[in-house]
């Protein structure tokens, strides 16, 4: 079951399918976050994106995020699927679904999940522009990991 809830795939991701995985009789609220490929970042036009993953570890880190969420918000259930490969504008890169008896926890846990994905999941994004390409996050101006490791999950 846990294997189904957290996945990294090179196939298109369905918002409805990921959300359905967490709908349960005891829940009244489900939040879904969908990350899509945005055309403009800081005024620069992206043509397409490429996501590359250390797949086995990425799935393990998604599962870890799921565990962190269940510790922080005990009645929630999360499912996350991240896409890899070449994506066009508006394609879906990631879907995070969290169900909960009440909505507050579902919003909080969902937002926590996307923050943690950006911290600990070994997936990389390469921007393709008209004038070249760049791996995002490999520049000195981005996260430098001062402790050599990503931060522990106690942000929220």
């Amino acid at each position, binding site marked *: 079951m846990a294997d189904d809830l957290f996945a990294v795939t090179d196939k298109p991701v369905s918002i409805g399918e990921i959300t359905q995985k967490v709908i349960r009789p005891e829940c009244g609220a489900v939040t879904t976050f969908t990350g899509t490929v945005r055309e403009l970042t800081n005024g620069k036009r992206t043509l397409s994106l490429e996501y590359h993953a250390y797949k086995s570890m990425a799935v393990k880190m998604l599962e870890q995020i799921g565990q962190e969420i269940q510790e922080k918000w005990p009645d929630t259930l999360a499912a996350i699927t991240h896409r890899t490969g070449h994506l066009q504008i508006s394609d879906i890169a990631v879907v995070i679904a969290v169900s909960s008896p009440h909505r507050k926890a579902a919003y909080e846990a969902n937002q926590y999940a996307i923050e943690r994905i*950006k911290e600990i999941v*070994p997936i990389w994004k390469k921007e393709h522009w008209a004038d070249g390409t760049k791996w995002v996050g490999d520049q000195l101006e981005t996260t430098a990991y001062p402790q050599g490791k990503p931060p522990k999950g106690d942000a929220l």
Partner: protein
Amino acid sequence: MIKVLFFARLQEEIGKESMEVEKAGVSVSDLKKWLAATHHLPHMTQTMAAINENYANDDDIVNEGDTIAFIPPVSGG
């Protein structure tokens, strides 16, 4: 023998996804320095490491049969 994995920009810089090296017993930080020097990898200091899919510290030791992955700052999501 230890297995070394490279990702994203690092993979492009070194020109391969993985290599095997006879470096069992070395620390993560010494392995980083050795790779940076022998393969001209200027960004190794900004790179995290994972041993057998768990994030490692710079002073952790890489043992025989381990897989160590070098992980540039991630940008998923």
